[in-house]
Structure formats: C-alpha cells, structure tokens
C-alpha cells in the first residue's frame, strides 16, 4: 500500500462538497414528497371504500417489490422524458415513489397504533374529525412512528447515491468520476464515505433526540 495522498482530497474537496449538497437536496425533496405520498396511501388503506384500499395495497406491494434502481430507471427513462423533467426532478420522483411505499406502511402502523377507543371516545365527546386528528391521533401516532420513520429516512439518504446512475452529479457520482480521473480511488472514495457517515450520523442522532422528546412523561 502506497502513501495516502491528502492533497488530492484537498484539491477535490470543493467539487465533493458541492456534490454533497446535491445529495442533501435530493434527500430533502424526496423525504417531503415520500412522506406526503405515504400519508395519502396510509389514509387510502384505512378508507371504507374498498377500491381505494386495494389500490393502496397494490402500490405498496409493487413498489416495495422492485429494486430502487429499477424504479429510478422508470422515473428517468419513462416518466421524466414524458413530462420533460430534468434529471434531478426525475431522480426526486423515482426516490419519492420508492420511499413512499415504505412510508405508507410506517404511517399506517402509527395511525393504527392509536387505540380504536380514542376514535370512539372523541366522537362521543363531540369533537370534530379535524380536531380529532390534530390534537389526539397524530401526536400519538408520531410517537410510535419516529424510530421506523427515521431509520427509513436514513435509508433514503443513502439511496440518493443511486441518482448517480441516471446522470445526476451527487456525491457518489462525483466520487466515482474523480476516483477514475485522478487514479486515487482509495482517498476519494474514503472521503465520500466519511461525508456520508457524517450525514447519516446526524440523522441517527436526530432520531434519538426526537424519541426522547416525544417520550411519555411518566
């Protein structure tokens, strides 16, 4: 093993830092959209209309059964081209659609975990549906959801690396490019790994903070 070349990392740092921001951007957009999509799907799954329940279940089955890379290809080559989306936008669509399927199950589990009794009790008390959701159901559901939601979010952050395959210059794609043009794969790829570790650790720590904050005070 030769010597470690710090200067290469220094030289390439600006490009890698900018690419890391693209990754974070991809992550943020996809997280928001996936959560929204997951919420909609969870509500559909709990709806009294059978066709909506069925549709939601089918969506989850299909999009949890496909590799994320394949979903991204669909988003880029098919949907993105039809709607004239930029590669970044196609990437967000693909990642959201894939993650949404998992969020749907997580959110549904959260909503279901709140005892049935509460729905009935609040009806008896004459609370409006909106009030019910906002003040009673959602806070309790969130408490249950946090661990799974956050670990899924961490997975989403890591899956932004797939966007490099459809030509988005995020961190992994940039690292691969630099590794091959500077012939220093170890230094570059390790630097990229360190950045990802930093980002995922931020998420994991946030998870613990959130869990603590939402814990029941007994």
């Amino acid at each position, binding site marked *: 093993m030769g010597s470690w070349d710090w200067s290469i990392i220094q030289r390439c740092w600006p490009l890698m830092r900018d690419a890391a921001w693209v990754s974070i951007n991809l992550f943020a957009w996809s997280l928001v959209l996936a959560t929204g999509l997951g919420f909609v799907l969870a*509500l*559909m799954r709990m709806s009294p209309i059978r066709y909506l329940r069925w549709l939601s279940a089918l969506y989850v089955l299909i999009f949890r059964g496909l590799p994320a890379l394949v979903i991204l290809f669909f988003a880029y080559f*098919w949907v993105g*081209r039809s709607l004239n989306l930029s590669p970044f936008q196609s990437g967000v669509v693909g990642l959201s659609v894939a993650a949404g399927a998992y969020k749907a199950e997580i959110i549904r589990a959260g909503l279901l975990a709140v005892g049935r009794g509460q729905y009935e009790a609040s009806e008896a008390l004459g609370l409006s549906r909106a009030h019910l959701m906002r003040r009673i159901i959602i806070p309790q559901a969130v408490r249950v959801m946090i661990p799974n939601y956050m670990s899924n979010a961490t997975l989403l952050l890591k899956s932004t690396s797939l966007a490099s395959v459809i*030509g988005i210059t995020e961190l992994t794609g940039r690292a691969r490019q630099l590794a091959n043009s500077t012939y220093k794969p170890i230094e570059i790829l390790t630097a990229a790994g360190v950045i990802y570790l930093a980002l995922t650790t931020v998420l994991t720590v946030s998870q613990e903070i959130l869990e603590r904050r939402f814990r029941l005070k007994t």
Partner: protein
Amino acid sequence: MVVSLRKLQRVLPLVLVLSLSAAGCGSDSTSSGKSDEATATTAAPATTAAPAATAAPAGVPGLVEEGKLIVVTTGNFPPFTAIDPDSGEVVGYTIDIAKSVAERLGLELETPTVDWVNELEGLAQGLYDIADSGIWPTPKRQESFLFSRPMTSTGIVAQVRAEDAGGPGFADMTGMKAGGIQGSSQEAYMLENADALGYESYSGFAGAGEALTALKQGRVDALSQDTLVAGFASVNDPELAVAGPTVLAHPLSLAFQLGQEAKRDAVNAALDAMIADGTLAELQKKWFNTCIPVPDHNNQEEPYTTMPAGDC
C-alpha cells in the same frame, strides 16, 4: 391544515387518473425509438416547455431549446471530452469545437454529460441537439443518426502498461486480458474479431477513466482504444503506453437525430468556416500537439483528404 378523510377520498381518484394519463401521453412517442421528426418531445402534455417544432428563429431550426445548443458528451474520453478535476467543467477538443460552433451560430452552449451507453440513446429520443464524444459514423450508425462533416480522423490501437510498450498489441493478443469501453466501436472491433485477435478474455468498462484504472491495476492487459485517446493518455501518464499496429483508420463526426438536416447543415457550415480560418488547426495543436488530416466526408470506402489550414 388537516384535510378530512372524506374529502381526500374524493380527490384521490382524480389525481391518480390525471397522473397516469400524463405519464401515458408521452410514452408512445418516446418508446418509438428512432423517431423521424424532431418533435419527439412535443408529444408530451401541454404543461411542458421546449417543443422542438416552434424552433429558434435565429436561423437554426429544430433546436431542443430555443437559443441553446445542447451538446452531450461523456466527459470520460480525454482529450476529446473530460471533466476537469478542479473546476468540474467539461473540457476537451470536442467541447472547444462545440463552443466555437455555438458562437458562430449565435447560440448559448450547454454541455451535459452522460455515460456512453446513454449518449446515443438520449440523442435518438431528442434530448440533445448534438452528441459529440468523438463518434465514428459507421454505416450502421448512419442508419439511425445524421452526421456532420468529420472533425478529425483517428484509428484504433492497443493501450498497454508502460512495461509492455514494445509489445505486439493487436498483432498478437494471446494470453492477454482485453478491455474496452462498453458500447463503443473499439469494443465492437474486439468482440467481432475475437478469434483472429486471440485474447484470453474481454471486459467492458463504463468509460476511459474506469478502463485506464483497470489497466493500471492489472485487471486487463490491453485496451482497445481510440488512437488519439491512447496517445494522449501515454503522453500524460508515464505508466501508460501504446503497442502494436493501428487499425481501421476512420473519421470522427458530430451526431444528430434523424430528420435534422437543417440543423446539421448549419453546423457543417460553421465547421467548414473553422477549417478555413484555421480555428480547427489551433484546437488540434492545443489538444493533440500536432495537426491531423481532417477527411472531407464520412464514407470510409472512398479516398479523402483535407488538411486543416494553418501550420503544425
């Protein structure tokens, strides 16, 4: 803020139907592959911009986006196209050609990069105006794409590690592990002549960068590579060299989607001007350190020459 369940249930089916039909609208045109019109992107629903039919009035018809020339390359084929590790910009011989052409046509230049396997496919689908990674206008490709006049000539040679510099190259590849860029004509040459060349195994790589790394690591012993690319690599890296004969001399040109004759002719005019006023010769000096004969047509069967004007 919180939407009631009932309202949601009524809106949802509508949203689903709309999104499904939007996805379905454009797919028929894009999946038809070699489309004959420049309007592949206009079949998309009305919400999208950039219809190729209402093209630039500035004298270049059929642009993907008005006022812009979108030239796609791999960024992984120096000195034709490479990504500068310091600035992250694409640079190279073909990029400089694209810059000069865009200037002469009064258009803004955009240079996206994609892997080689996606470059021609994206061009066929009408995503770009020009594909310019140093493309060989083979008869087969000319069935699916239009090509400009050539902008250089080149060949195929074996790229090897420095210690194999005096070796036989393509003349005798017994016992060698061969490599090349996936989907390239240099790869096709290897695969079609497997028996004659006699190599032990063949591996394809995504681009020049990966292929050269593999060569240096010893994963492969010889790369089937473009002559100018191999020469450039050998000059700039003491660990690399070329070996053996150069085969299959051929021109390199810019590729266009079928049906885009007017766009191609406009670019041809710009290229002719570049040759006449010595710009092309300057670029050749800059990137290849020498002047290279530029053929005047793409048909390899017939003899050709023009030399770019200027001294080398």
